[in-house]
């Protein structure tokens, strides 16, 4: 694992956090008093902020931090949740998502992100400043407090501290130092950082210089005096909370440092070989153990751990004193009490003087080091903790799928080989054995395939996730009230199917919001509840996933659809007149139906239902619409459970082999020529008492050949399901079913109509697989 892995992990977890945040924000809107939701929300933001801090992602951290402060107040009920607040948070999270994208792509945030991040952070902080409770001195932990230790002469403090003359305050305790770097545009916001700094409570010292070098020579003429370039450091002895409140509106522009001068144990000058830093830290940790032992009510476990800590500290510090101390520590009884150990520790501290101020300060911070500089490249240490969950990269799963797919196809060549063994090489026994082995391999391959499909299965809820937000935003824009109800989000489908679903579903929802659900006033007038409901229900039916999107809106107006279709020249007036209302409503699926005057400010690009239908059919799915005027509209999507391995029936026509997806095939039948009726250009036959139109596949494929009958004068008819009806395709030969991996057409061929894709056959040939729906249109 190296820097790149850590970055990947960061991106993954950051996205998870953002997703959780987005979801929770919507949940909280519905249920603002739910503490659990609020805490959950806070935790996600908190984790994200914490992770940002591991890297130098300042712009991102700034925004997330502002969000965290805001949410902290909300969950402590010192700030009320509101739609405006939610909006600001959602925008801030969207912005964060952009930054994370940059990080994923370039490994860092692009230059110039500061402006945007400051804007979002300020927008969030504005809520804090406006609220009445902001005046209460609630500590904003802008950055953690650092313990400075000038007495030991080591510079472990931020460099700006050196600008302050702290010796003057040596006798004071509780001295706080801070650095205020106002943002460039602060003057334009009406801020006066000089005023803010000057009026800090308990101000002891104040110094100002230029953050960047002041302009020289020619630069001065062009210099903009309204771009703030001040770098202010100051120290104060007012309580931190008070000072923080003073700076609350610019909290993210302030860095803190605890300037209290501790009279600490000086590192013993005994052994120059041991670094002063080491001795200093060891002494600090020693103090910590003393503090620990000094507290009441400790268990034997704590005493043991403290003793161990003391022992270990001594073994790292060199010198006669330390060795002696080690020896005497070892002599203490096994069951030494906390107080005895404490007494011992106090008198054996690896330091010259007794500790005057034993403060357990968080360890002093080292000069800021970028992770990249510090993490050397080293091989992985294998994770030893038992993992219950594995996170696997998508590419690995895809690769597995490919391999399994190839195996599925490869195994198909075995029956063919068996046949050759028998017929060409007269090896009957061998043929039989090959067939037997094929059966075994076939079963395993099937299992393997199902297993990997399970891995690729995702809950459809993954797509539904974003709808809450979409519906909220759009309904608000339109002034409509809409409730979203989702059922069956755990229903699983293949990853590819799910991914292809997103866009069509969004179009459908937009239509529903735009044309379906009416304005509250209109609804009330119609005797409906002012808020409309959109229900998305997902369930599995045998090998399909059914998704229904139902709204209780105005329904589709059959008459208007009829008129519009005629107007657009999509259908003849008299034909339109013969359609029932149910059928008329289906006209909206015709290409060209959606028009300019249907574009509200949302369905902007005039995406019609024809596009939706095409998209769904491209993934071997189907769309059906039913509507009751005045009551609502239901769209029913039927999708394949999996998209990878398809079973096709291979047919021969005009000397070519073609595949037809098995799930569309109703039956294969041979029809004698005399049972085929001709009427003008059309051919039909009667099957099971119903008239079935016949189309020659060659005609559909523009192949200039007639279907070839067999020796008995019968034509091969492949009956397929098309638009709830049966259609018979005239082909030359049936060649049996085959499992294939359907590869969609790519590149130049992608626009080819009538084909679902290609597949590699067991004998190495390429099979063109048909999309009968497209062909028949």
């Amino acid at each position: 694992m190296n820097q790149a892995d850590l970055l990947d992990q960061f991106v993954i977890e950051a996205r998870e956090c953002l997703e959780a945040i987005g979801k929770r924000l919507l949940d909280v809107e519905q249920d603002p008093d739910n503490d659990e939701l609020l805490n959950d929300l806070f935790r996600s933001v908190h984790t994200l902020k914490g992770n940002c801090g591991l890297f130098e992602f300042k712009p991102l951290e700034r925004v997330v931090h502002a969000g965290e402060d805001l949410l902290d107040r909300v969950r402590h009920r010192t700030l009320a949740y509101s739609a405006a607040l939610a909006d600001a948070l959602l925008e801030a999270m969207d912005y964060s998502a952009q930054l994370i994208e940059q990080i994923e792509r370039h490994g860092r945030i692009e230059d110039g992100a500061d402006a945007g991040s400051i804007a979002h952070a300020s927008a969030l902080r504005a809520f804090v400043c406006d609220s009445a409770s902001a005046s209460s001195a609630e500590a904003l932990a802008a950055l953690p407090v650092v313990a400075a230790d000038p007495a030991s002469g080591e510079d472990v403090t931020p460099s700006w501290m050196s600008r302050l003359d702290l010796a003057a305050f040596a006798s004071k305790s509780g001295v706080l130092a801070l650095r205020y770097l106002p943002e460039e545009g602060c003057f334009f916001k009406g801020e006066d950082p000089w005023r803010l700094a000057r009026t800090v409570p308990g101000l002891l010292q104040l110094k100002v210089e230029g953050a960047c070098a002041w302009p020289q020579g020619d630069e001065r003429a062009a210099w903009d005096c309204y771009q703030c370039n001040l770098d202010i450091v100051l120290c104060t002895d007012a309580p931190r909370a008070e000072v923080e409140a003073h700076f609350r509106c610019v909290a993210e522009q302030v860095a803190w440092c605890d300037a209290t001068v501790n009279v600490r144990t000086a590192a013993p000058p005994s052994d120059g070989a041991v670094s002063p830093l080491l001795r200093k830290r060891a002494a600090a940790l020693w103090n910590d153990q003393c503090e620990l032992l000094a507290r009441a009510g400790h268990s034997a476990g704590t005493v043991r751990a403290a003793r161990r800590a003391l022992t270990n500290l001594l073994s790292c510090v060199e010198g006669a004193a330390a060795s002696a101390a080690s020896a005497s520590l070892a002599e203490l009884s096994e069951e030494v009490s906390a107080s005895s150990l404490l007494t011992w520790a106090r008198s054996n501290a690896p330091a010259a003087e007794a500790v005057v101020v034993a403060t357990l300060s968080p360890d002093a911070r080292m000069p800021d080091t970028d992770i990249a500089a510090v993490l050397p490249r080293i091989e992985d240490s294998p994770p030893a903790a038992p993992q219950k969950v594995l996170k696997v990269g998508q590419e690995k799963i895809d690769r597995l799928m490919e391999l399994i797919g190839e195996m599925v196809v490869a195994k198909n060549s075995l029956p063919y080989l068996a046949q050759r063994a028998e017929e060409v090489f007269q090896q009957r026994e061998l043929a039989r054995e090959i067939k037997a082995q094929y059966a075994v391999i076939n079963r395993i391959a099937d299992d393997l395939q199902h297993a990997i499909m399970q891995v690729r299965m995702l809950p459809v809820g993954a797509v539904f996730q974003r709808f809450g937000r979409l519906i909220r935003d759009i309904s608000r824009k339109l002034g409509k009230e809409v409730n979203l109800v989702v059922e069956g989000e755990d229903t699983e489908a293949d990853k590819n199917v799910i991914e292809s679903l997103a866009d069509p579903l969004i179009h459908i929802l937009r239509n529903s919001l735009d044309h379906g659900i009416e304005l509250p006033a209109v609804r009330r007038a119609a005797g409906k509840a002012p808020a409309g409901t959109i229900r998305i229900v997902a369930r599995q039916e045998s090998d399909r996933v059914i998704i229904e999107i139902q709204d209780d809106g105005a329904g589709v107006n059959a008459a208007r659809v009829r008129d519009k279709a005629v107007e657009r020249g999509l259908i003849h007036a008299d034909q339109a007149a013969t359609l029932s209302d149910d059928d008329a409503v289906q006209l909206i699926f015709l290409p060209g139906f959606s028009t300019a005057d249907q574009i509200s400010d949302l369905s902007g690009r005039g995406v019609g239902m024809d596009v939706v239908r095409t998209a769904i059919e491209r993934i071997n799915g189907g769309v059906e619409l039913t509507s009751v005027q005045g009551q609502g509209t239901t769209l029913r999507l039927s999708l394949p459970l999996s998209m990878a391995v398809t079973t096709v029936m291979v047919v021969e026509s005009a000397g070519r082999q073609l595949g037809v997806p098995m799930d569309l095939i109703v039956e294969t039948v041979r029809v004698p020529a005399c049972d085929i009726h001709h009427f003008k250009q059309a051919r039909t036959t009667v099957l099971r008492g119903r008239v079935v139109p016949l189309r020659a596949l060659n005609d559909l494929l523009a192949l200039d050949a007639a279907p070839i009958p067999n020796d008995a004068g019968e034509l091969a008819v492949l009956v397929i399901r098309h638009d709830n009806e049966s259609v018979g395709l005239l082909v030359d030969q049936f060649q049996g079913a085959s499992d294939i991996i359907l590869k969609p057409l790519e590149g130049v061929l992608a626009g080819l109509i009538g084909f679902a894709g290609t597949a590699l056959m067991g004998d190495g040939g390429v099979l063109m697989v048909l999309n009968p729906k497209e062909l028949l249109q």
Partner: protein
Amino acid sequence: MYRILVVDDAATVRMYHRKLLSDAGWHTEEALNGVEALECVHAQESDEAFDLYVVDVNMPRMDGYSFVRELRRLELRHQAPVVMVSTEAQRQDVDAALDAGANGYLVKPAQPLDLVLSAALLLGDREAARAATQGVRT
């Protein structure tokens, strides 16, 4: 070989801390929260207890303080120093850590040197402590 248990609910932080610690030459394991951490501790063989615990404060299910309190009630062989890691740096947070039984306190995000040096000292790994402070301007 020293063994350290890293407990934190953020996967990125776990990865970061484990990386720093394993680069220093120690074996690390991880847990997502106090409950899992206790399970992990219990799962240690009799000759294989942890030598150090690096524990986050804010975790779901069972936070850092609770974990340390529970840890301190277990058999003596599991009793090793605990370094608490937290985003908070107020006096009361440090107090809470001490009350629970922690031996050290670091502020998140922990600077690499802070974590490694504190760990080395509390483990009694003199070599690692030396190596950590080498090259640091003091």
